[in-house]
């Protein structure tokens, strides 16, 4: 039996998650470009939004993994999808308010798993698939990205010798425009698909699509627009953490980190692995810090970030399980009440974050080491070109 109202609420919630995914992950592509001054903050998020929009149309392989590879699509109901999405949104907003670059993908997968466990039982969860397609890649991908970025950083400093020839920084900033664009494109290709997969799951649950069906065109368009809007909104707190707090980044490091992240992301997308862009880009930024001699990596910040990574999946699962338990077998009334309460709580969290706002105007106001970037002496490269 179809339930239009419930389906509408689930689709809106999914698009809201996609929006949070966009603003939470803007840092993945643009933090290093903003930190090195290659791009003005507002220009960076606008460029990233356009490329995320384009990227969302490029592939649907990861969407298929989400729609049928994590939980049994036949056991899924609309309230389960709703609870899973809300758990993921809650975790995203919580980590954003602390400026922690946690994985939106793992929050989403954790949310869907938690809600499914409570409502449909253990048998509806594909444990083997979760380990093979989520857990193992989650552990390995930041290590691979970190190693590639570290080696690439060393190569860049040895080949171009920017320390002896500071003019090289200007050219690396141009390179950063291209590499950051590639990461944004890859992010749109990989992350927008996850929400497409969840909406497809909801459509299957409401018997509007057959199991294992591909996402319809309107789902692809809606998800592309939502992630692009979220990206343009800009998650400035996470951008500051990634661009300044982890390590002090120079243009050659930013270029190496983004190139490493883009290659890992695009290869994984081609293989249908729903990798976390956050893990990959954070691993690459750390790798670029380690790869440069005498660079200073703030391991305390990196440690907090790794703890957030480890907690993301179980915490989102726990929140979604709680919401799934509250909704129970209830219908649209329970879902509407939970949605209204959740919207009020999330609004309160946003207002709380406004007490110490971080915006495009102050995102780069962070104390740097004495050997500060050449940034202070040059204008962003796009302004130099005109």
């Amino acid at each position: 039996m179809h339930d239009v109202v419930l389906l509408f609420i689930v689709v809106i919630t999914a698009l809201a998650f996609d929006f949070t995914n966009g603003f939470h992950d803007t840092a993945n592509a643009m933090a290093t470009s903003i930190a090195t001054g290659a791009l003005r903050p507002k220009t960076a998020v606008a460029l990233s939004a356009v490329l995320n929009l384009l990227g969302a149309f490029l592939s649907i392989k990861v969407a298929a993994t989400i729609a049928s590879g994590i939980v049994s699509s036949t056991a899924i109901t609309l309230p389960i999808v709703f609870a899973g999405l809300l758990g993921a949104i809650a975790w995203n907003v919580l980590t954003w308010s602390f400026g922690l670059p946690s994985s939106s993908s793992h929050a989403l997968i954790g949310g869907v798993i938690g809600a499914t466990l409570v409502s449909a039982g253990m048998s509806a969860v594909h444990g083997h698939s979760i380990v093979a397609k989520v857990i193992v890649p989650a552990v390995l991908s930041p290590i691979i990205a970190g190693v590639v970025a570290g080696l690439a950083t060393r190569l860049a400093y040895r080949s171009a010798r920017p320390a002896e020839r500071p003019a090289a920084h200007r050219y690396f900033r141009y390179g950063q425009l291209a590499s950051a664009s590639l990461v944004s494109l890859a992010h749109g290709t990989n992350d927008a698909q996850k929400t497409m997969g969840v909406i497809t799951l909801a459509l299957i649950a409401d018997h509007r699509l057959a199991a294992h069906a591909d996402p319809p065109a309107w789902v692809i368009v809606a998800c592309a627009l939502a992630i692009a809007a979220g990206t343009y909104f800009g998650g400035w707190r996470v951008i500051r953490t990634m661009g300044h707090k982890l390590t002090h980044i120079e243009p050659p490091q930013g270029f190496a980190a983004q190139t490493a992240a883009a290659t890992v992301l695009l290869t994984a997308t081609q293989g249908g692995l729903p990798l976390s862009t956050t893990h990959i880009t954070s691993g690459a930024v750390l790798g670029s810090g380690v790869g440069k001699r005498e660079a200073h990596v703030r391991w305390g910040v990196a440690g907090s970030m790794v703890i957030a990574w480890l907690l993301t999946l179980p915490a989102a699962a726990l929140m979604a399980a709680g919401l799934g338990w509250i909704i129970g077998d209830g219908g649209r009334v329970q879902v509407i009440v939970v949605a209204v309460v959740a919207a009020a709580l999330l609004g309160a969290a946003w207002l709380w974050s406004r007490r110490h706002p971080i915006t495009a105007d102050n995102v780069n106001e962070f104390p740097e080491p004495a050997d500060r970037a050449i940034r202070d002496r040059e204008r962003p490269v796009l302004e130099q070109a005109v």
Partner: protein
Amino acid sequence: MSSYVDLATLRNVVVVALVLGLGITLLFSVAVRALVTADEQPSAGLGQRLLAAGCLLIVLAAVAVGLWAVLAK
């Protein structure tokens, strides 16, 4: 353990990331070095700029092939 890891996909990710990531960075860095040399020594300008253009063309071709591989899937 191997049943939990898609070894073929993982190997592809590692190999392609290493080859493309390091290759692109190396070529771009050589191009940057050539451009800076051309700026500093105008007498050697043409050769250095040609070297930089060659490196950047290979980088563009590698990125285009990589994107095509994703799109063609």
